């Protein structure tokens, strides 16, 4: 009877944990790739573009403004 309870907790916490870790990993990988791409494109820009910033002390909440660079619904 109690086996079910343990199973339930393990499955739920395990799945959420795996998903969270995987998500963080994907984010880090994408950030790294973006860093490389950035350095190819903008050869003369500041060093900030090349090194992922250190933890924590950046602006508190990510700025969610619209990207002005997006192309319009053309083509």
């Amino acid at each position, binding site marked *: 009877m109690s086996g079910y309870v343990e199973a339930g907790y393990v499955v739920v916490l395990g799945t959420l944990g795996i998903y969270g870790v995987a998500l963080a990993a994907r984010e880090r990988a994408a950030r790294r790739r973006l860093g490389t791409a950035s350095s190819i*494109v903008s050869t003369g820009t500041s060093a900030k573009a090349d090194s992922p910033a*250190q933890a924590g002390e950046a602006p508190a909440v990510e700025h969610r403004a619209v990207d002005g660079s997006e192309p319009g619904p053309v083509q």
Partner: protein
Amino acid sequence: MSTPARVLAQDRPAALRVLGAIALVGVAATVWLGLFVTPPDQFMGNLVRLLYIHPPMAWVAFLAYGIATLASLLYLWPRTRAEHFDRLAGASAEVGVVFTGLTLVSGSIWGRPTWGAWWVWDPLLTTTALLFVLYLGYLALRRVPGEFHVRARRSAIAALIAFIDVPIVYFSVEWWRSLHQAPTVLNPTTHKTYVHGSMFWTLMLGFVSFTLVYAWLMVHRYRLARLQDLEETEGLEVAIEERRAEGEAG
């Protein structure tokens, strides 16, 4: 191009880490309370411990869907149209589908010893199962390649079409089921269970903690989406740059 620089510079803002920490603590507390501190129920014994997990899962599943739909609406409304709403919808949907799956699994695990079956056609469970498939369809549609605005608009409309269906599904199934007397997850016995102090507060803590978990996952999924979109734009620019370099070299 300063946008990648700006995004990269915002690696792990403090607020996000705090959110993650609080969520983690909340879940840990819920688990500890749920598994060890609270007493077993007089009717279902230790199985009640699963009911500190299952309802929060269901709550988040529906919350996530609601938010995805709301974001879709905001995207469609011309005055509030903005890319971040589409990304928000997608992020919420992906996190939501995980919680929906967990709702079904946890409900199933609780149901097996309680009713002797891995699945019963309980209105809430059945609606959740349908919600799961609706989510998957929405996510599949989002993955179809296309220009950002095109993809966003068609996904948003699909989200609305599906969302309106959910209450119809729920009431249909509920009525369908009321014609046959059969077990439900939310029956009077279950309600009585939560009256005892520690059990009630553990459940409340569960709701709050998993909502925070959802929020943390959602923000990270959103950020990932943002990075991926930037990657696409960057990818184009890299290709152009390389082409230009080749042209100059050759």
